[in-house]
């Protein structure tokens, strides 16, 4: 029981971090970014390359992952989203294709086989029969710190308030002197960096392999659909619902079915409450 609680908390913190970058882009840019999982992929491999292949310090590896994700986000905005302005189907198809393209690039550069990320912090603690790798604990705590900082940022800075403003009323933001283009650029860069850092943690939780962008994308979509696009707090709550659902499923039913219930939950919510549990579209 305690084991389930601990594992659920650790996993949910990570899921919240995975989902929040996706939520940001949907709220501010109104774009369903199906290439979101690619940030995690690129982040994981960037960390692998810089920290393990080149042997840079682990913190520097995480930083490089964040920078790669940020640049990828900015490029995606400038080269795909902005030219296709407002054409949602085209943006969704293009971003999905981009994710597949990046997967192929990763296979081309690093090969098809999966890689093991060494723990960011080595060591394991046993609590009530549950093995808690320090790496997972670090990932959960880091996720919480990042989410709380983000929550503070969005509420208390000019740029953060501008992001909320653009998400709630584009014209209102424009006549307040907010440049929506700059806010969008910033949000895409931030979303990419968050996704890539989440990718490092996610890969250290599971493993690093070229198809690792799919599962996080489903988690992010699930959090967004179940929660309704909402506040950062809403993302946190629903990430815990999804995280605990997975842990409970693998503990009491079968580990093979863990992802299945998340997807069933998506369908149930779509049918029963299309606007989500906390449904509103603003940040």
């Amino acid at each position, binding site marked *: 029981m305690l084991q389930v609680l601990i594992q659920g908390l650790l996993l949910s913190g990570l899921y919240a971090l995975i989902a929040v970058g996706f939520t940001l882009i949907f709220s501010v840019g109104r774009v369903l970014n199906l290439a979101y999982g690619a940030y995690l992929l690129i982040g994981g491999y960037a960390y692998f390359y810089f920290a393990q292949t080149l042997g840079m310090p682990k913190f520097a590896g995480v930083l490089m992952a964040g920078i790669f994700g940020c640049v990828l986000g900015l490029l995606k905005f400038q080269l795909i989203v902005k030219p296709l302005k407002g054409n949602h189907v085209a943006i969704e198809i293009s971003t999905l294709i981009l994710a597949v393209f990046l997967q192929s690039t990763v296979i081309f550069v690093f090969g098809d086989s999966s890689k093991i990320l060494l723990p960011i912090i080595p060591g394991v603690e046993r609590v009530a029969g549950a093995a808690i790798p320090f790496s997972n604990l670090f990932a959960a705590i880091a996720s919480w710190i990042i989410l709380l900082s983000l929550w503070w940022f969005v*509420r208390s800075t*000019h740029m953060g*308030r*501008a992001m*909320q*403003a653009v998400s*709630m*009323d584009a*014209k*209102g*933001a*424009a*006549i*307040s*002197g*907010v*440049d929506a283009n700059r806010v969008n650029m910033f949000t895409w860069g931030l979303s990419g960096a968050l996704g890539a850092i989440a990718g490092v943690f996610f890969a250290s939780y599971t493993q690093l392999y070229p198809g690792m962008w799919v599962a996080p994308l489903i988690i992010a979509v699930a959090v967004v659909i179940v929660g309704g696009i909402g506040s950062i707090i809403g993302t946190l709550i629903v990430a815990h619902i999804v995280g605990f659902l997975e842990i409970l499923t693998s503990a009491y039913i079968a580990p093979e079915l863990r992802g299945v219930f998340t997807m069933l939950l998506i369908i149930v919510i779509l049918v029963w409450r299309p606007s989500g549990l906390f449904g*509103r579209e*603003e940040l």
Partner: protein
Amino acid sequence: MAMLDIKNLNAFYGKAQALHDVSLSVEEGSIIAIVGANGAGKSTLLDSIMGLTQFTGDIHLDGRSIASARTRDIVASGVGYAPERFNLFPYMTVRDNLMVGAYTARGDISRNLDMVYRLFPRLKEREKQETSSQSGGERQMVSLGRALMSSPRLLIVDEPTIGLAPKVCLEIAEVLKRLRDDFSLTVLITEQNANFALSLAEQVQVLESGQLVASGTPAELSSDERLAAAYFGHA
């Protein structure tokens, strides 16, 4: 030199032309009203000044063309806009709505916030409330307050009294007068409520189907029988 000078403005919504060859100037320190029925093009005219529509023609602010300027630069050069539907941020507090208005005038926040709260004490009382839960009158105050947070010299207000109770209309009129008299702002408003416009403005322009058809002081316009019957509801 006029503070705002609009020359031969033609504005479009898609292929439909909403404004035809509108020319208008606003002198510094005056209160000007544009009167017209629903759909006459009042909001399009104001949106065009803010760079939010497709248009041809020229618009000068203090002698400099702003016709191709970006909205944020127009705001930063001293034009505050309170639009008809307010366009507030519904799930942000009153105070945060005002803070977004300060985006281009961060050095003046404490002075402007103090001015807004002095003009609208009710906003100070409700600064922690989300605007989605507010009445129309309160939203109009937030909208005006947000526009004032950008340190404007020209304040543009689209239909300040629409949907508001008569008592609130008087309050708003009082504030607009104080902004001109005490804070040296120039004020440009649109109105369907011609009596409100006549009681407030020194100069009134009449907009009909996208064209300016008459202009004058309130006294001049009231004495024109044809206009009086058509726009001001009395013969």
